[in-house]
């Protein structure tokens, strides 16, 4: 699904953010990228989203070399990737509903169909009763969930998250991870950048460790879900459902 071949990225001014990084993420796989601040986690995600251009190597997404994508194709490529930001990047001039609606508006969905999908996404993150509120009135955890709803509303094959739990307390952070696992279970390929080692080591997913731009560790761990860590009744329900990577669309 996502393949890095010897990817290097040097920023203007000479800072080398990534050095010869290679890895491959299978369909429906879930992985964390970890490392200290400045290790290159965000850069790696930005390269996948084509916010930044690499200097060396190549990145294949669904078998396509994304660096050869014509400029005007970039928006259409981005629609297939959901992104969750640390600062959620919500718009405070409109309601929760309209925020989640945005990706569908961009794709030109029929209003009725779009509204149905927005409600489904909001239901998924447990915020259906807050759709009319302005996101500024929500708590940090709720805002992050709105951001997640927006990222998944047009059912992307790939979900990227950059420090999605960076501003949240451990309990809320674990809840967010439960959500991510649920999306993963329906076949969404997940790549999550996080420096919250105490949380992600307990989750037992694949873990890529970056240090000063180099990939120094790539650990495949036996799966232990976030639901078990969070231990809520809601979470344990979903945790018992088996992952079905064959079921997702391509």
């Amino acid at each position, binding site marked *: 699904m996502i393949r890095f071949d010897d990817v290097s990225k040097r920023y203007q001014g000479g800072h080398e953010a990534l050095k010869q990084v290679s890895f491959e993420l299978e369909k429906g796989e879930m992985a964390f990228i970890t490392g200290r601040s400045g290790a290159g986690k965000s850069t790696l995600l930005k390269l996948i*989203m084509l916010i930044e251009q690499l200097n060396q190597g190549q990145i294949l997404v669904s078998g396509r070399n994304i660096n050869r994508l014509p400029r005007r194709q970039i928006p259409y490529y981005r629609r297939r990737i959901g992104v969750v930001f640390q600062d959620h990047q919500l718009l405070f001039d409109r309601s929760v509903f309209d925020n989640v609606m945005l990706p569908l508006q961009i794709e030109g969905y029929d209003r009725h169909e779009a509204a149905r999908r927005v409600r489904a996404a909001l239901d998924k993150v447990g915020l259906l009763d807050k759709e009319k509120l302005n996101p500024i009135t929500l708590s940090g955890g709720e805002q992050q969930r709105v951001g997640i709803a927006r990222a998944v509303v047009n059912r992307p094959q790939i979900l990227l998250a950059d420090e999605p739990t960076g501003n949240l307390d451990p309990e809320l952070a674990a809840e967010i991870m439960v959500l991510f696992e649920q999306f993963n279970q*329906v076949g969404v390929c997940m790549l999550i950048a996080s420096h919250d080692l105490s949380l992600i080591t307990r989750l037992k997913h694949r873990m890529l460790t970056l240090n000063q731009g180099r990939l120094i560790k790539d650990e495949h761990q036996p799966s232990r879900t976030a639901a078990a860590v969070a231990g809520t009744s809601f979470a344990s329900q979903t945790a018992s459902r088996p992952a*079905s990577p064959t079921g997702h669309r391509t």
Partner: protein
Amino acid sequence: MTAAAKTRRNNTKIRLSTRQHAVAWLSLHRECAMAALRRLWQQPASSAMTLAVIAIALLLPALLYVTGKNLSQFDNGLAQANLVTVYLQADVDEASIEELQRQMAAHERISSTRYISAAQAATDFAQWSGLGDVVGSLADNPLPASIVIQASDARYETAVQLQETFNGLPGVDFVQMDQLWLQRLDSFLSLAQRAVVALIVVLSLAVLFITGNSIRTSIASREAEIRVMNLIGATNGFIARPFLYSGIWYGLLGGALAWILLALLMLVLRGPATELLAYYGHQYQLQGLGANASFALLGGSAVLGWLGARLSVSRHLTRF
């Protein structure tokens, strides 16, 4: 149905027909246009300021155009009446006048003549100028008798020829071509036409820059939104669209405001202008912009607003 099959079905992207796409696209544009209008309304002070500047910039050429249009009525009216006035000497005798009239009647380039005696001239003048008391108080009538010649055609050369023929004949004081001031009017009008064109060009640029600048400010104030839209896969066209609609609204509303201002001005001027025009005959009336020019004003200003927005968008949206 297995769980996997169910998931597959739920994830199947719903395909829209071409017609559904067209309907969605149209409603998107309508919403976009209305949202742009609402945004103008939400910032009444700055919008009003921008619209006022656009309206004034458009009002100037419109005003000049209307002035030219009104003046050209005279051009059309008087060009048909190619008049040459032969002023007679104060001490002219009846025989000379008769001789002159006979010559004129025989002249092939003259279609009609009218003799105006000195007394008639004084009466006419008193009537037209409203200075009857002054004229009446004079001991002698200062006005000469004259013969007004209507030439057979409207050509300037004919008038010149007539002037040359009658100038210097016995009893003739001097011959004046009314064509002369028509010539002046003509050249003034063509000058005014050029001025209108030049003004339209210059002030169109002004409208372009005014809208461009307003759009630049609104792009700056919506930076967060633009960045997010860009990240979640909005095309440049999609991001630019609301700004282009804002530009169209600025232009269109500015043009409408200019039209209203012009109409008010005409209303104020109507009374005095009608009085003035009455002196020159009843066929003259104060004319407004007219339907064609009104549509040109509104359409042109909308296009200018759109162009200004385009300029601004192509300069400032590339940053994101």
